[in-house]
C-alpha cells in the first residue's frame, strides 16, 4: 500500500510542478510523462502482488468531510482493474509526449499534463476507494479532469460541444449514483463499502431499484446503449492519447462500479442476467453497426468501445445467470470472460487509438475516405494497427479471441444444461456474439483496408511520414501484449483465480476446478496456434522456393483491360459497407445526399452519407429541448428589476408568516 500512496503523491506533485514550470514545453512534457510513468511503475508492484495471491491491504485515515473517511483498499478486483489502468496510463503518457510535440510553442502544455496526472490519480482513487464520499469525490475528479483533457483544442466549436455533451452526460450519470449511494447508506446505516458488502441489501424491491440505478449510473460512464451518446462525441474530440486512455480504461471504471455494486446487492434474480445480456446485445450489435457506418476513424473506434463494453456486459450477464441458477461453471466463465475482456479491450483499443492518432498527425485528417496507401509510408503504425484490428475482431490467435472464447464457452455450456429460462437468453447471446464478431471483422477490414491499403485518395495521404519513436514504442508494446495474451492464454486465465474468488465468493477449489476446465481447452487452442505458426513458416518457405529463379514481375492492378485507373476509382469506406447500411437503414437512419450524373456529358455528381447517432437525435435532443423550454418559462420571473425582486422577497416573507401562524 505504501507503494500506491507514493504513486499518488508523485502524481499530485508532478501535476503541480508541471503547472509551475511553464517553459520550455519540452521539459514540461517530459516532467509530466515522467511522473505518470514512475507512478504507474510504482503502483504496479502491489497490484501484481495482490493478483498473485498476496494479502489485501488497506489504509484508513480520518477525513474532515461529513461522512467521509479516507479509506482505500487494494483487493483483487481493484487490482485487476488497476493493472490495465496503470499500464495504459504510462504508455499514453509516453505516447502523449511525442504526440503533443506539434503543439510545442503554440500552446502552454502545463494544463494538459496537470489534468493527465489528475485523471490517472482520479481513476486510481475510484478503484481504491471504499468510502462512498471518497468514491464520489474521486469520480468527480476523474470526470472533471477528463473534461478538461477532451476540450484541449477548445478553440474549435465541435470540440467545445463534445466537451459539453460529455460533461452533462457524466453528471447525469453521477446523479443516479448519488441516489444509489444515498439509498444504500440509509438501508445499511454506513458509508463504508465493506460494511455494505457484509450486510448486503436484504429487501428484494430495494435491491432491484439499486440494480437499475447502478446500471444507469455506471452504464453512462461505461457506455451502455442508450447511455453511450457522449462516447462518439468525446473520443474523436480529445487528443489521441487521451482518447486511448478514456476509451481503454476510464470507461472501465463504470464496469468496475457495476461489479462492485453487485457485491452489495445479494443474490441476483434471474431477470438481472437477462437484462445484462439484453443490454450487452443491444450495445454490441448497435455499437458495431454504427461503427460500420462511420467515416471518421476515431468516431468509428468510439463506437467500437460501445460494442466491446457490450461484450463485457454479456460476460457479466452469463455470470449472473450462473449465480441465479447456481452453476459455478457459468459464474467462472462469464465473469472470467468479462474481466479478461476488460484487460484485452484496454490493450487493443489503446493500440488502435494510438494508431489513429499517428495517422491523424501524419496526414492531418481522420476522414477515412481521404486516406489510403498509408502502409507504404507508415509501416510500423500499419503493422501494429493490423494486430489491433485482428485482436478486436475476436480472431485467433490474439487476445480478443481468448476472452470471447470464455464467454462463448459459458454460453454453450449454459445453453446445454439450463432449462428454457436460462437457455433462451444464452441462445440469443450465441447468435448475437457471432454476429458482432462477423460485423467487427467487416468494420476493421474496412478501416485497415481503406486507410492503409490501396492508393492514396487525396493529397493528405500521399505526403506523410512515420510517427516518432515515442509514439511507436507504446504501439509496439501493446501489440506485443495482444499477441502474448493469445499465446499464454491458459496462464492468463489462471491469473483470474484471485479476482474471481474475491468477486463471486465461490470457494477456492471450485474456482480453481472451473478455471482449469477453461484453461484445458485454451491450452489446446494454443497448440492449434503453434501449429498455425509452424504451417505458416513452412508455407512461406515453400512459396519462396517455388518462386526462386522464376519470373516475378510488377504491373498495374488488373482493371479488366482499363489501363488508366485513378485513385478515386477505388472502393471507399462508404461503398464497402453499403450492403450492411442498406440492410439496416431502418435502424441507422443514414442521411444520403445524392447528386446524380445527368446529361450526355455529366459534369458533377456526388454522394455523401452521414450516420448520426440514433439516441442523440431521437431521444436526447428532443428531451433536452423540452427541458430547456420548460426552464425558459421560469425566465418570466426574472425581469432584472430590483423593485420586483424586493417584491418577491416581501411576498415570500408574508407567505411564510401566514404559514407559521396558520
Amino acid at each position: 500500500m505504501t507503494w500506491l500512496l507514493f504513486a499518488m503523491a508523485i502524481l499530485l506533485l508532478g501535476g503541480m510542478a508541471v503547472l509551475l514550470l511553464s517553459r520550455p514545453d519540452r521539459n514540461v512534457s517530459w516532467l509530466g510523462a515522467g511522473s505518470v510513468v514512475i507512478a504507474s511503475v510504482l503502483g504496479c508492484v502491489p497490484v501484481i502482488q495482490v493478483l498473485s495471491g498476496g494479502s489485501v491491504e488497506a489504509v484508513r485515515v480520518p477525513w474532515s468531510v461529513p461522512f467521509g473517511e479516507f479509506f482505500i483498499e487494494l483487493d483483487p478486483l481493484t487490482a485487476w482493474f488497476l493493472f490495465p489502468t496503470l499500464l495504459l496510463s504510462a504508455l499514453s503518457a509516453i505516447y502523449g509526449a511525442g504526440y503533443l510535440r506539434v503543439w510545442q510553442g503554440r500552446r502552454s502544455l502545463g494544463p494538459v499534463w496537470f489534468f493527465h496526472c489528475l485523471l490517472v490519480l482520479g481513476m486510481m482513487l475510484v478503484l481504491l476507494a471504499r468510502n462512498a464520499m471518497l468514491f464520489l469525490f474521486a469520480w468527480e475528479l476523474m470526470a472533471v479532469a477528463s473534461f478538461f483533457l477532451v476540450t484541449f483544442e477548445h478553440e474549435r466549436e465541435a470540440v467545445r460541444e463534445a466537451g459539453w455533451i460529455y460533461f452533462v452526460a457524466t453528471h447525469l450519470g453521477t446523479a443516479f449514483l448519488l441516489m444509489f449511494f444515498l439509498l444504500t447508506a440509509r438501508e445499511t446505516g454506513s458509508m463504508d463499502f465493506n460494511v455494505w458488502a457484509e450486510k448486503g441489501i436484504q429487501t428484494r424491491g430495494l435491491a432491484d431499484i439499486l440494480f437499475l440505478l447502478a446500471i444507469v449510473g455506471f452504464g453512462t460512464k461505461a457506455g451502455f446503449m442508450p447511455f453511450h451518446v457522449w462516447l462518439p462525441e468525446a473520443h474523436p474530440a480529445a487528443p489521441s492519447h487521451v482518447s486511448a486512455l478514456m476509451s481503454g480504461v476510464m470507461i472501465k471504471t463504470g464496469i468496475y462500479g457495476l461489479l462492485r455494486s453487485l457485491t452489495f446487492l445479494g443474490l441476483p434474480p434471474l431477470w438481472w442476467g437477462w437484462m445484462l445480456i439484453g443490454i450487452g446485445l443491444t450495445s454490441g450489435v448497435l455499437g458495431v453497426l454504427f461503427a460500420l457506418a462511420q467515416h471518421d476513424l476515431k468516431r468509428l473506434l468510439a463506437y467500437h468501445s460501445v460494442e466491446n463494453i457490450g461484450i463485457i456486459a454479456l460476460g457479466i450477464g452469463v455470470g449472473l445467470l450462473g449465480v441465479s441458477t447456481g452453476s459455478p461453471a457459468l459464474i467462472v466463465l462469464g465473469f472470467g470472460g468479462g474481466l479478461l475482456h476488460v484487460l484485452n479491450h484496454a490493450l487493443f483499443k489503446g493500440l488502435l487509438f494510438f494508431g489513429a492518432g499517428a495517422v491523424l498527425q501524419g496526414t492531418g485528417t481522420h476522414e477515412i475516405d481521404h486516406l489510403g496507401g498509408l502502409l507504404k509510408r507508415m509501416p510500423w503504425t500499419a503493422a501494429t494497427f493490423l494486430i489491433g484490428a485482428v485482436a478486436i475482431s475476436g480472431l485467433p490467435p490474439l487476445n480478443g479471441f481468448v476472452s470471447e472464447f470464455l464467454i462463448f464457452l459459458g454460453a454453450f455450456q449454459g445453453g446445454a444444461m439450463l432449462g428454457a429460462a436460462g437457455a433462451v437468453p444464452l441462445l440469443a447471446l450465441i447468435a448475437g456474439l457471432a454476429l458482432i464478431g462477423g460485423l467487427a471483422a467487416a468494420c476493421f477490414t474496412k478501416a485497415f483496408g481503406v486507410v492503409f491499403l490501396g492508393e492514396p485518395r487525396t493529397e493528405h495521404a500521399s505526403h506523410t511520414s512515420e510517427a516518432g519513436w515515442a509514439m511507436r514504442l507504446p504501439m509496439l508494446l501493446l501489440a506485443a501484449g495482444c499477441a502474448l495474451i493469445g499465446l499464454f492464454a491458459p496462464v492468463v486465465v489462471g491469473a483470474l483465480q484471485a479476482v474471481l474468488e474475491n468477486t463471486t465468493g465461490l470457494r477456492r477449489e471450485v474456482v480453481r476446478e472451473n478455471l482449469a476446465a477453461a484453461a484445458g481447452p485454451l491450452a489446446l487452442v494454443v497448440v492449434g496456434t503453434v501449429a498455425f505458426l509452424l504451417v505458416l513458416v513452412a508455407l512461406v518457405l515453400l512459396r519462396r522456393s517455388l518462386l526462386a529463379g522464376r519470373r516475378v514481375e510488377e504491373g498495374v492492378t488488373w482493371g479488366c483491360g482499363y489501363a488508366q485507373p485513378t485513385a478515386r476509382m477505388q472502393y471507399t469506406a462508404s461503398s464497402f459497407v453499403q450492403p450492411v447500411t442498406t440492410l439496416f437503414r431502418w435502424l441507422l437512419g443514414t442521411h444520403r445526399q445524392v447528386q446524380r450524373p445527368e446529361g450526355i456529358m455529366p459534369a458533377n455528381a456526388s454522394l455523401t452519407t452521414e450516420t448520426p447517432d440514433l439516441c442523440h437525435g431521437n431521444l436526447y435532443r428532443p428531451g433536452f429541448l423540452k427541458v430547456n423550454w420548460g426552464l425558459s418559462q421560469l425566465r418570466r420571473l426574472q425581469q432584472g428589476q430590483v423593485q420586483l425582486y424586493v417584491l418577491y422577497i416581501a411576498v415570500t416573507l408574508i407567505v411564510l408568516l401566514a404559514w407559521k401562524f396558520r
Partner: protein
Amino acid sequence: MYPESFIPLLLALVLSPLLLGIINRTKALFAGRRGPPLLQIYFDLWKLLHKGAVYSRTTTWIFRAGPILGLAAVLTAVTLVPLGNFPALIAFPADFLLFAGLLGLMRFFMVLAALDTGSSFEGMGASREVFFSALAEPALLVALATLARQAGSFSLSTMLGQVSGGHWLHLGPVLALVMIALMIVLLAENARIPVDDPNTHLELTMIHEVMVLDHGGPDFAFIVYGAALKLWLLAALVVGMVVPATGASWLDLALVMGGMFAVAVIVGVVESVMARLRLVMVPQLLVGAGALAAAAFLLGLK
C-alpha cells in the same frame, strides 16, 4: 489423439480437390456436356504451382501474405474436424469456436489482400464477402449450439458421433433443421449458388472469384487449395451428423466417403437446377438459416 485421427487429416489433404471435380462433373452431366476430368483441379494446381508471378505496383506485403495466411489457417482447421467416426487430431470442448475463428482469420486476410490491390472490383467482392459471412456466422454457431445441447458434449469429434448414433430416431425434426441450416452455411461460405456463382469471373455479381482476381501462380494455387479444403471441412460437418457408426472401420470409411461425395453431388445438383439469388435476397436466405437453427434449438428444449 488416436492413430485413426490421422485419417481425416490425410483424406482432407489428398481428396479435397476431388470434391470440386465431382461438383463440376455433376453440373456437366445436367447440362448434357462431357465436362472436365474429375481430377481437373489437381491439374490446375500443378500448373499454377509451376508458374511465376505478377504483382500490382499498388500492392504491399499484405497481398503476398493473404494466400499464405489463409491456407495456413484452413490447414490448421483441418486438424479440428472429424470425419464420420474418425475423431479429429485435436479435439477439446468448444473446438468449433477455434474452427470458426480460423475460417474468420482466413477471410480477414483474403479480404485485406483484395483491398490491397486498390481495385474497386475486388473491393466490391470483399465488401460482399464480409457482409454475407457475418450473417452466416450466427447460423453456424446456433446450429452447433443445438447439436451441443442434444449431444451433451462440446467437441466436434464427440458431438457429431453421438448425434448420428441414435438421435435421428427421436429427434429427427431438430436434426433435419440443423442440417438444412448447415447446408446453407456450406453453400454461402464456399461461394456456391445460390449465394455466389463460381463460374463467372467478370460479372458484377461476383464475390469470391472477384476477390482473387489479381492473384496468380503459386499464390492462386494456395487460394484454390484452401477453398477446396474449406468445402471439404464444412461438408464433413454435414456428413458427420448423418453417417452412423457401424463398428467396422472399413465400412465406416466407405460410408463417410460416400457421404462426402453425395454432398458434392447435391451441391452440383443445386447449382444446376437453381439460379443465383439476387444479392439483396441473400441476407434473407442467411438469416433464414439462422432462424431454422434457432427453431431447432427451441424445438429441442422441451
